């Protein structure tokens, strides 16, 4: 970043720890940005004249006579239409070789929306993936994470969702993304010819971990610009929030804070909420939808990170490999979209809620039948039918490689019902059975 003129240069650091350094200075604002020998830093503590700075890239090699320059402002992002199609690092500096973005200077991590000025989310987001559209319908203004083990193809699914969703802008916040995954996103967006509506803020595993704390705020500041100022539909992808939380715990540890559950800072809930609550539907038309990834360690959702996330977000999506069909599916039991009630059967066909519930119930019956089989009990005819239904349901609807519209999903479900069950076994309201039961 450019050095501004007329700034006082301090050269006497009094204390250095792994992530912070302290010096005597006056007239400094809290959360103000500074550079220490050119490295970006932020004020995290003021005590009299004693200023403590957190250096994002670490303090390795910082001498006590390092040049410290205060910038007189918190971290900012310049926002304008020029952001579209560009790739930035965690500080908002271009990493695609292009020129600096000119625009209005905005503080990142700004204030929250007055709750009475929000609108209830009401617009369906179609992804073509039946595991999402049919069972866990997404709505603009929603915030929802994928809870996935690191080996699952969540980045691919997210990229697919992003491209199919009819968003005006897609903003990628990559935290601790491997370089390979970063290039994957870049390629996918490029091949889809969607680069002009993508904006990326990326911290890869090659960058210092603490830097990634800036990424969500950068991404969401850009999102607010397009959603609020430009009234656009904005989709924000945040991957991987677990690595973000890990960075929080590194900082709080170095600040000598007492850790709470799972070594996470006591403020984890508020820290995550501040990010996710930026998801909003504005009454004037723009919206911010957040789809995030929270990686789990072997499916454990009681860990502090997924647990706090679950209390904040409006549902969660689970991916699972279905060994019966050899494909990754969206798990219908553990996945949930809390906002689906606002759109299903209203913006989709009327039979949607009933078909969705009946299919999941029959799928659950199949799971019971499978347990019975594994325990060596005899199967009834109904058990056998549910199991063959489950295989087809999984393959034709739950698998993530499905790409059809919601009406086609509903028709497929009816076909499967008709093929495997009697009307009474499916137990759907008579008026829908009359209209849609396949002959």
């Amino acid at each position, binding site marked *: 970043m450019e050095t501004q003129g007329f700034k006082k240069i301090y050269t006497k650091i009094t204390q250095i720890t792994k992530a912070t350094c302290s010096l005597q200075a*006056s*007239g*400094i*604002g*809290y*959360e*103000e940005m500074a550079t220490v020998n050119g490295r970006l830093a932020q004020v*995290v*503590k*003021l*005590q*009299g*004249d004693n200023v403590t700075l957190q250096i994002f890239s670490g303090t390795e090699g910082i001498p006590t006579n390092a040049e410290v320059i205060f910038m007189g402002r*918190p971290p900012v992002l310049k926002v304008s239409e020029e952001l579209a199609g560009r790739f930035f690092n965690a500080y908002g500096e271009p990493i695609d070789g292009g020129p600096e973005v000119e625009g209005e200077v905005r*503080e990142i991590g*700004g*204030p*929250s*929306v*007055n*709750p*009475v*000025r*929000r*609108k*209830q*989310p009401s617009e369906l987001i179609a992804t073509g993936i039946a595991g999402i559209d049919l069972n866990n319908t997404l709505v603009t*203004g*929603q915030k929802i994470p994928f809870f996935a083990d690191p080996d699952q193809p969540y980045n691919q699914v997210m990229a697919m969702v992003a491209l199919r969703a009819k968003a005006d802008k897609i903003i990628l916040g990559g935290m601790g993304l491997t370089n390979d995954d970063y290039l994957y996103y870049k390629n996918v967006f490029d091949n889809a010819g969607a680069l002009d509506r993508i904006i990326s803020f990326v911290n890869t595993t090659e960058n210092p971990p603490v830097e990634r704390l800036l990424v969500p705020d950068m991404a969401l500041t850009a999102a607010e610009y397009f959603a*609020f100022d430009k009234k656009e539909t904005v989709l924000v992808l945040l991957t991987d929030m677990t690595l973000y939380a890990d960075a929080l715990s590194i900082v709080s540890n170095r600040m000598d*804070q*007492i*850790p*709470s*559950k799972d070594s996470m800072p*006591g*403020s984890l*809930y*508020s820290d995550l*909420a*501040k990010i996710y*609550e*930026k998801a*909003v539907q*504005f009454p004037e038309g723009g919206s911010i939808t957040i789809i995030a990834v929270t990686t789990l360690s072997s499916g454990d959702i*009681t*860990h*502090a990170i997924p*647990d*706090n996330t*679950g*209390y*904040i977000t*409006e*549902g969660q999506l689970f991916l699972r490999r279905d060994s019966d069909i050899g494909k990754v599916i969206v798990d219908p*039991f553990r996945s*949930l979209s809390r*906002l689906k*009630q606002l759109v299903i059967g209203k913006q989709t066909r009327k039979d949607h809620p009933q078909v969705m519930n009946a299919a999941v119930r029959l799928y659950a019956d199949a799971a019971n039948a499978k347990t019975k089989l594994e325990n060596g*009990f005899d199967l009834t005819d109904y058990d056998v039918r549910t199991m063959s239904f489950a295989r087809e349901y999984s393959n034709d609807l739950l698998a993530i490689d499905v790409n059809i519209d919601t009406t086609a999903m509903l028709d497929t479900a009816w076909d499967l019902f008709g093929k495997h069950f009697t009307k009474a076994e499916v137990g759907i309201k008579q008026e829908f059975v009359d209209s849609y039961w396949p002959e």
Partner: protein
Amino acid sequence: MEENKMTTGKVSGIIANLVIVEVDGPVSQNEICFINLAGVRLMAEVIKVLGNKAYTQVFESTRGLKVGEPVEFMGHMLEVTLGPGILSKNFDGLQNDLDTMVGTFLKRGEYTAAIDVDKAWDFTPIAKAGDVVVAGDWLGEVKENWIGHKIMVPFKFEGKYTIKSVKPAGTYKASETIAVITDAEGSEINISMIQKWPVKMPIKAYTDKPRPFRLMETGVRIIDTMNPIVEGGTGFIPGPFGSGKTVLQHALSKQAEADLIIVAACGERANEVVEIFTEFPELDDPRTGRKLMERTTIIANTSNMPVAAREASVYTAMTIGEYYRSMGLKVLLLADSTSRWAQALREMSNRMEELPGPDAFPMDLPAIISSFYARAGYVFLNNGSTGSITFIGTVSPAGGNLKEPVTESTKKAARCFFALSQQRADSKRYPAVDPIDSYSKYLEYPELQEYLAANIAPDWLGNVLEAKNILLRGKEAYEQINILGDDGVPIDYHLRYWKSEVIDFVILQQDAFDKIDCSAPIARQKEMLEKVLGVCRADFDFDNFEDVNPWFKRVINVFKQMNYSLYQSEDFKKYETELAEVIKERKVA
């Protein structure tokens, strides 16, 4: 409190929203001060004093604040403004009116008036000149929505006063003097419709706080029938995410038989509050036929709003509740979620480098929680009328584990425990209140037992306990069946299990999204419980365990159709007849 000179100070240290201020005069614990930040005044509260340093928690972001900035102390604690015009408002945790704020984004340092002091109200006097009054006595009344809003002697007044004059019936502004009273020394004091009260102090303008005894109907069967809550009682709802805490709380706020509802959305999702904003003005209150919003006040401090104000929000809500209780009203206070409030305490305790208790929560967490729950209750006012605050808080236990400090501390303070179970939620048995783990201590109160016997039926309590026992035995039978296999147990086990399933499906489960089933009046609950127990008490004839399941499923299905039908309607009676026929097929005479 009226000191001649206000204390001032200068900022000397900043760590997130903990700001250390060097002061030049006396300060008191919990005193409110305003910190200057480039012309914006940030509200803060003193939470610790060390020598001439006051540690304050700022209710806003401290970004950009500098050492040396001036601070003004106000000489009072965090106060709310009490008067007509609170009802139906949307406040933040510090009682700022969210609707009068300018712009889409919350600006820090923007504080809006809680009450419109210039609004005119139709006043009717209650007291007359010459009456001797104390704090909390009713001087007059104005109509706020449909509630008779009492104008009272301010709660801060100590001792006895004599009324010199009360304004005659007429229209007055809220800020106008409506009565003049004289104290023991004969000095005159003007009283308006508005008064202030510090939120952390309970309002004690009542003569007696007896044990609560009157059932508070919520229309939710698993609460009213199985684990009843009483007027002035306390309860809490712990549950992992996705188990339906919010849906249950919304059901309570829509249906509960209370005069007014105060919802403290404390550190939860903004979209959930938006749902209330959007739906409550449209929904009808079944008891008054008016819109639900008219009896609802919302204190919204959502999870992205400042953390310190989150702690204040529950106190703000409770104080408003106490104010309306002093008018002789039945108040239901809902707080979602008290865990977020406890987390706010933890964040602050952490920044002050206090020695941590379990899970890094402050050591005095149990004391803070229990003294807060103690502010609820049923009271006799000075004039003999009664009022109540029923408090139900939700708890969001980390990892769904009920052995964490907030749940355990709350369990000691609250008398009803509505445990939401992940397993029940997963199998879509809503409301997912666990029938075995949950309890209501009030069922053990002789006062309530008498009330139930007199107002529902003499054998009501016996029936409820019998149903609970059947559920327990059904669960035991189910475990045996799972271990030994369907054909490895006597048929009797299947019957026992399926009888408990009838109670589960017909009484415990309830469709919160169905227009009719969502709320069941107590008379209906009584009839359904008796019908279900009729099935449970009967003997049935089965030769083969495979026939048990389909037959009971038919029974349950007919019962459910009854639940979905208008009470005592044609449909209801049709299913009643059908039920009798199905039962006859298998019942042993």
